[in-house]
């Protein structure tokens, strides 16, 4: 077991990448601590599966290095890396029994048969497969098959990390929650590094201690679920995480002030001096936008009931915004006044939080 380090990693599927769009993965540096529960979150086509396959060794990166601990494994094939991977669609060896499926990785590595049985039984116990050990794997349901895939990963004691590539895609909704809890529980019992790729924020935020958000072949932010929610480093993170996502309003910076349509806003982060160039936006989450007595006037377009609160859609300074309103608060139909809390209002330049990465 070891820390996984990705150093100056870049990948392109084309032989001669020219424009930025030719890169499936733009240059990134990442460290995955030993025993951590990570999620790799992003929309389809953002490069997260590419990244996963580079870690497991199914794909060789065109630039950069992959280190396990201090060993450079960039050129090692998957079977030498001590990595397990669970795929989107369940992969089981149809002609074998569940037992033989779980024993397969051990037998391939020449583990003595006397050691195979107790290990397989132990893993079957963890993954709730004990009752089915002697049935044919082809007859199982999708979630049973995913458990076999997972079990094949856990069965090897020398595994550095277990990678999950959207493992719940084909699972029935009511079983998804169950399997996710099982994963979480297994991570507590078997403290191995787990990297979970998904486009579903609920899956990512409930499973992982650290979430890596990717967009267009780039890592936009790495952090705990709280950090991603409270302090998005990029408007994309604000948008993608949270439901509804962060409100983003185009603005300009004039003489060190943030201005939207003539109104000056105060923000939590630093505002550049003078009249800098670039595309500026302010972002505030619907949770922190409040109806108040003094502030910016807005008209109410619609109100939707979402259970414990309501989601109001308003027009403010010509921009459509969303805010969460508690059940008991009244929403005047003829217009409201909005309070932009400076502690939760942030300025972004070209998408990125100012004062951070530019």
């Amino acid at each position, binding site marked *: 077991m070891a820390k996984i380090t990705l150093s100056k990693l870049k990948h392109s599927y084309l032989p001669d990448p020219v424009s930025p769009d030719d890169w499936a993965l733009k240059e990134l540096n990442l460290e995955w601590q030993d025993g951590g529960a990570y999620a790799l979150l992003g929309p389809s086509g953002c490069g997260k599966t590419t990244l996963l396959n580079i870690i*497991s060794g199914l794909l060789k990166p065109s630039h950069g290095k992959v280190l396990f601990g201090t060993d450079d494994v960039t050129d090692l094939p*998957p079977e030498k890396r001590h990595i397990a991977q669970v*795929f989107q*669609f369940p*992969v089981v*060896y149809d002609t074998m029994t569940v037992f033989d499926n779980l024993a397969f990785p051990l037998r*391939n590595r020449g583990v003595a048969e006397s050691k195979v049985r107790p290990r397989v039984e132990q893993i079957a116990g963890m993954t709730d497969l004990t009752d089915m050990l002697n049935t*044919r794997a082809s007859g199982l349901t999708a979630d049973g098959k995913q458990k076999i895939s997972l079990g094949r990963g856990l069965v090897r004691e020398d595994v550095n990390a277990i990678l999950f590539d959207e493992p719940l895609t084909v699972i029935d909704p009511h079983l998804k929650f169950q399997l996710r809890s099982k994963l979480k529980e297994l991570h507590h019992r078997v403290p191995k590094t787990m990297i979970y790729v998904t486009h579903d924020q609920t899956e990512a935020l409930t499973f992982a201690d650290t979430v890596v958000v990717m967009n267009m072949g780039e890592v936009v932010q790495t952090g705990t679920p709280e950090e991603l929610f409270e302090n998005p480093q990029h408007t994309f993170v604000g948008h993608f995480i949270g439901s509804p996502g962060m409100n983003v309003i185009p603005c300009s910076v004039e003489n060190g002030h943030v201005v939207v349509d003539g109104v000056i806003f105060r923000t939590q982060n630093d505002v550049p001096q003078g009249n800098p160039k670039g595309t500026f936006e302010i972002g505030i989450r619907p949770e922190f936008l409040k109806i108040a007595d003094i502030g910016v006037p807005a008209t109410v377009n619609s109100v939707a009931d979402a259970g414990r609160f309501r989601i109001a859609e308003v027009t403010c300074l010509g921009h459509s915004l969303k805010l969460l309103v508690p059940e008991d608060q009244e929403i005047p139909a003829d217009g409201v006044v909005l309070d932009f809390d400076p502690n939760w209002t942030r300025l972004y330049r070209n998408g990125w939080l100012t004062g951070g990465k530019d």
Partner: protein
Amino acid sequence: MNKTLNQKAWFFVIPVLVLVAFNAIVPLMTVVNYSVQETFGNNQFFWSGLTWFQEILRSERFHASLQRQLIFTGSILAIEVPLGVMIALAMPRKGFWVSVCLVLMAMPLLIPWNVVGAMWNIFALPNIGLMGKMLNDWGFDYNYTRQVGDAWFTLILMDVWHWTSLVVLLAYAGLVSIPDAYYQAAKIDGASRWAVFRYIQLPKMKRVLTIAILLRFMDSFNIYTEPVVLTGGGPGNSTTLLSIDLVKIALGQFDLGPAAAMSLIYFLIILLLSWIFYTVMTRNEDQ
């Protein structure tokens, strides 16, 4: 898929039923009719019961052709199936070369059977054929029109040339239907090349290979035109397979009774062997 019970579906089947019944039942009845009668010419027929069947089943000649037929079918299956699978495994999975391979490989399948025979006849002629001439130049005493061994060698080589592509196409269709994730999982599980073949590729090809073997079995048992054109059943009777023998009896000697009885026995053997094979191959799936 759940199918609904609907007896009106029979109406959909009627056109097929009429066509096939007309082509299968009427001629089959004719054959059955001949098989139980004796004729002395002049269209006079006498009931002869099962005499013809007994005669055929006891005849040395039938045993000999049946034996040759079994050796032929056994040999070509033993060569074509493994060879076809091997070629399919080595074929590219995507890209421009796939089409090139498929088109070129399918060509022998679309050549009329007697042209196949004629082509090989010319190709293997010891004096002017490319293969025959080459073999003789290299010091082999090769002459398929005179030597039994050479005739068999040429016959089997021709069938391998003609039909291996069918196995390749089927096996290839089975292979390309395997998702990449299976190969990736096997790599991660540390599976050897053999284990990948044994536990992933072979199980996924099983269904198409069943079709391939069944088709090759049926068609090789029915083979007539190619060997007739190539060797004419000779030298002597050494390459006279069942169909050739049957036509010799029926049209050559006009012994309709024995020919008809032989036809039926022949047909029953194919049905029986196909049924056994089919049952064995599909039995495991039901478990």
